[in-house]
């Protein structure tokens, strides 16, 4: 009893003597703007308060002595001061620094295409690609609607800023992909082999890209694969051109995906008239396996392998002998293996290693001649990245490629083999949050050419407002000549110098950019009566506009791109400096997508315009001075979302050139110049319908 009394007395006394300190003040940003709703915390106690709408705060505490007062707010760096708590009132005038906001921080951007929600390095997502009308979910076709790229239907690949298709290289998780396209028919473009849905993002660079990427003179298409799928699902697609199945199996920290597909264009070709008369319409069988393992909180191992087999044979008109169509057949086998591993060694260092193997074999008949062709590339790469400061990094690495071709004609063989080894180093130096400088260099040695090169790359970004930025880039780019020339003899590296200036405004739902460039080409491969040399030159200059808006129209998204291109080159068999046949002066695309909730349908339309392309007319006095008519195309796509047997299903339709514009890519003249044949799309219009079912995903919620 006595003790209890004493204690209560003690507590009573203690409470009485507890000193109350009143802490009040005001919190402002470093620019003097009052910060509302900030959290003021007396560390390790419950005491504290939030600032009011004028940045003011006041609270009382019974704590005493030296304590830490912490203040934090959204978009600001958490900071603290030490306060000496004695009886009475403490008045504080606090300042808080804005935190690094990635959306508002300057970035390396010259040459890169940035769309999406304005986050770093972005991208056309898989969904963006699949819903772009006219692209038929082809990665490469979708990129052709972006500024800088030309429309093309008579040759596979991306023609960027006056560059030929071989000057754009594709990188799969950082590894060079030598043969990204399906087997081709002469004078026709073919689709990319890889499904858009393998990738979480595609980033398209029209110039000035990082020292990590070599052997590309004009452009880099950077594809990054998705991480672990969320759950086990089965995907089935039934299209008018074939069918495919994918089984995803999700384990705790890893996932396995096995897929197979069969495509046969015979039924489609019966319905849609083709330019060529097919003996065997393209038929393809392919299989793939993919394994991803999250090795730790920050580590990821990926393995992907695919095998594809294609057969085609046809008769095509021969302009020199119109009465005797030429026979052409192609059996293609393509193997691709890509494996990468990345891990953060600690807070500061990241390691990336990769291995890739690509083999592409063709054999068939050209007229009566038997041909074979084998392209191969094996690559190993390792990169170390060091992060320092708040945003800066320094990376360096090495890679080596074994590449080459062997070919034969009626049993007569030839080939070449090259080991290209490269080292690169690059730093992204954030001098402030508003100013970034990239300095990089890359060096390569080619065992076949017996030559070295050294390529400096630099890029500068300067933030001019919360949403706007100016960028500049200069870089030198080297590439070995195309296989068809190297197989004849050793040549020097081809060279391009890029100068890029860009202004952009990026907001949450809207983007605008204008970019101008000048490119100087040297040591291009010239061919004189079958003898290649490195005496070719050329230039390209132009500007591009891009506008994307996801805000104005509800559930709608549209972008407009325009490219102006002025280019001339003297390469291949050109007798003089001229604008090549793949370069249209004006190219414009309008891509529009609208989700209509009522009918659960996404519709899309793409309109593309390109001014006339040059073609060689032997009857003209000036080389490549003739122009085709303008190119016009309107494509539509409809995706209806529904359920079949309770499984999530997409009903898909894509129609190209619905209005039936007569598009001509160029003309082929007979040897004597008296006859000509128009190079046309494989068919005037094209239609694909399909059904895509995902089993195991019957509802998006559990």
């Amino acid at each position, binding site marked *: 009893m006595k003790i209890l009394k004493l204690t209560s007395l003690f*507590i009573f006394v203690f409470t009485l003597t507890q000193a109350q300190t009143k802490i009040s003040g005001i919190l402002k940003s470093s620019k003097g703007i009052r910060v509302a709703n900030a959290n003021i*915390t007396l560390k390790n106690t419950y005491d504290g308060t939030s600032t009011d709408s004028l940045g003011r705060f006041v609270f009382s505490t019974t704590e005493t002595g030296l304590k830490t007062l912490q203040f934090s707010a959204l978009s600001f760096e958490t900071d603290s001061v030490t306060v000496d708590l004695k009886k009475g009132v403490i008045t504080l005038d606090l300042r808080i620094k804005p935190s690094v906001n990635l959306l508002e921080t300057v970035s390396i951007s010259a040459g890169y295409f940035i769309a999406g929600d304005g986050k770093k390095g972005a991208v056309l997502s898989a969904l963006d690609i699949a819903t772009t009308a006219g692209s038929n979910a082809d990665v490469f076709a979708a990129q052709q609607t972006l500024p800088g790229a030309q429309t093309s239907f008579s040759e596979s690949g991306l023609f960027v800023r006056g560059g030929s298709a071989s000057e754009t290289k594709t990188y799969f998780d950082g590894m060079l992909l030598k043969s990204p396209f399906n087997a081709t028919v002469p004078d026709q473009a073919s689709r990319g082999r890889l499904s858009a849905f393998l990738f979480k993002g595609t980033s398209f660079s029209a110039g000035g890209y990082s020292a990590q990427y070599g052997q590309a003179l004009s452009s880099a298409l950077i594809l990054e694969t998705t991480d672990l799928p969320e759950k086990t699902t089965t995907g089935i697609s039934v299209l008018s051109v074939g069918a495919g199945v994918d089984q995803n199996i999700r384990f705790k920290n890893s996932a396995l995906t096995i897929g197979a597909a069969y495509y046969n264009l015979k039924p489609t070709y019966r319905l849609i008239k083709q330019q060529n008369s097919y003996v065997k319409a393209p038929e393809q069988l392919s299989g793939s396996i993919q394994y991803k393992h999250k090795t730790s909180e920050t580590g990821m191992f990926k393995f992907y392998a695919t095998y594809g087999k294609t057969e085609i044979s046809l008769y095509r008109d021969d302009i020199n002998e119109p009465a005797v169509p030429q026979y052409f057949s192609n059996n293609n086998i393509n193997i691709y293996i890509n494996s990468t591993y990345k891990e953060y060694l600690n807070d500061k260092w990241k390691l990336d290693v990769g291995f890739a193997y690509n083999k592409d074999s063709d054999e068939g008949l050209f007229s009566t001649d038997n041909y074979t062709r084998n392209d191969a590339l094996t690559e190993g790469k390792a990169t170390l990245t060091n992060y320092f400061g708040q945003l800066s990094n320094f990376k360096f690495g090495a890679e080596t490629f074994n590449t080459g071709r062997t070919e034969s004609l009626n049993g007569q063989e030839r080939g070449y083999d090259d080991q290209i080894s490269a080292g690169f180093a690059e730093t992204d130096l954030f001098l402030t949050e508003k100013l970034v400088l990239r300095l990089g260099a890359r060096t390569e040695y080619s065992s076949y050419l017996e030559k070295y090169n050294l390529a400096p790359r630099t890029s500068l970004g300067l933030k001019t407002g919360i949403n706007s930025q100016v960028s500049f880039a200069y870089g030198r780019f080297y590439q070995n000549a195309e296989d068809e020339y190297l197989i004849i003899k050793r040549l020097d590296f081809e060279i391009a110098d890029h100068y890029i200036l860009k202004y952009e405004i990026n907001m949450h739902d809207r983007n605008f950019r204008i970019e101008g460039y000048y490119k100087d080409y040297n040591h291009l491969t010239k061919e004189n009566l079958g003898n290649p040399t490195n005496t070719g030159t050329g230039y390209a200059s132009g500007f591009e506009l891009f506008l994307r808006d*996801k805000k104005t129209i509800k559930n709608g998204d549209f972008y407009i791109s325009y490219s102006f291109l002025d280019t001339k080159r003297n390469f291949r068999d050109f007798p003089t400096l001229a604008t090549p046949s793949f370069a249209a002066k004006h190219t414009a695309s309008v891509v529009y997508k609208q989700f209509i909730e009522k009918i*659960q349908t996404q519709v899309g339309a793409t309109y593309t315009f390109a001014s006339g392309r040059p073609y060689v007319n032997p009857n003209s006095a000036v080389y490549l001075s003739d122009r085709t008519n303008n190119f016009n195309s309107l494509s539509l796509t409809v995706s209806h979302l529904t359920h079949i047997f309770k499984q*999530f299903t997409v009903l898909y339709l894509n129609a190209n050139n619905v209005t039936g514009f007569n598009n001509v890519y160029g003309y082929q003249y007979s040897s004597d110049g008296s006859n000509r044949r128009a190079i046309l799309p494989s068919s005037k219009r094209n239609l694909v319908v399909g059904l895509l079912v995902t089993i195991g995903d019957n*509802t998006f919620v559990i």
Partner: protein
Amino acid sequence: MLVIFSFNSFAQTNNQKFQTGVKKGLDMLIAAQSSEDFLKTSNYFERVAQAETKEWLPPYYAAYGNLLAGLMINDKAIQDQYFDKALLEIDQANLLSAENSEIYALKGYIQFMKMSVDPQARLSFMAASATSLGKAKTLDPENPRIYLINGQNTFYTPEAFGGGKIKAKPILENAVAKFAIFRPASEIAPTWGSERAKALLAQCN
């Protein structure tokens, strides 16, 4: 002797202090009307969280406060930042209390809202939300908030993507039934959601 006793009482009051501390925050939560109110509540729970580094409820409620503060704001860029903060806080709660149905349920809620900021680009959040809710259900199938959040997600998902009122209705009915028999683990354990479930269910008819 005095010292020992007062030390003892200190230990006792410390637990009481935590209980009353959280209760005070819960009162703020109930009274909150605007985005600002929810932010202030969230701030309060963050203060408790930094003092009570072993308790999962303070970061849990801080996450909940940030989520609601974000829901009441129209600016998508700011909204997104609140949701990001809520995600960090719910992950913090998860570190302090692993395999907790309430935490996974709230995480599923936040992930769904992250998706709603930019549905076209963020479909993966939809699957992530479903995974979190699935996990919450395995851990405690009687937790009514799982069905509320699932029903709510379904309610706001277009019919085309497997959502809609018709599909949401049975889930929400289940939620209301589970809320009726739900007894929270303690005075300060999560109890929110019953009214919301009833209100949404009423809209399904």
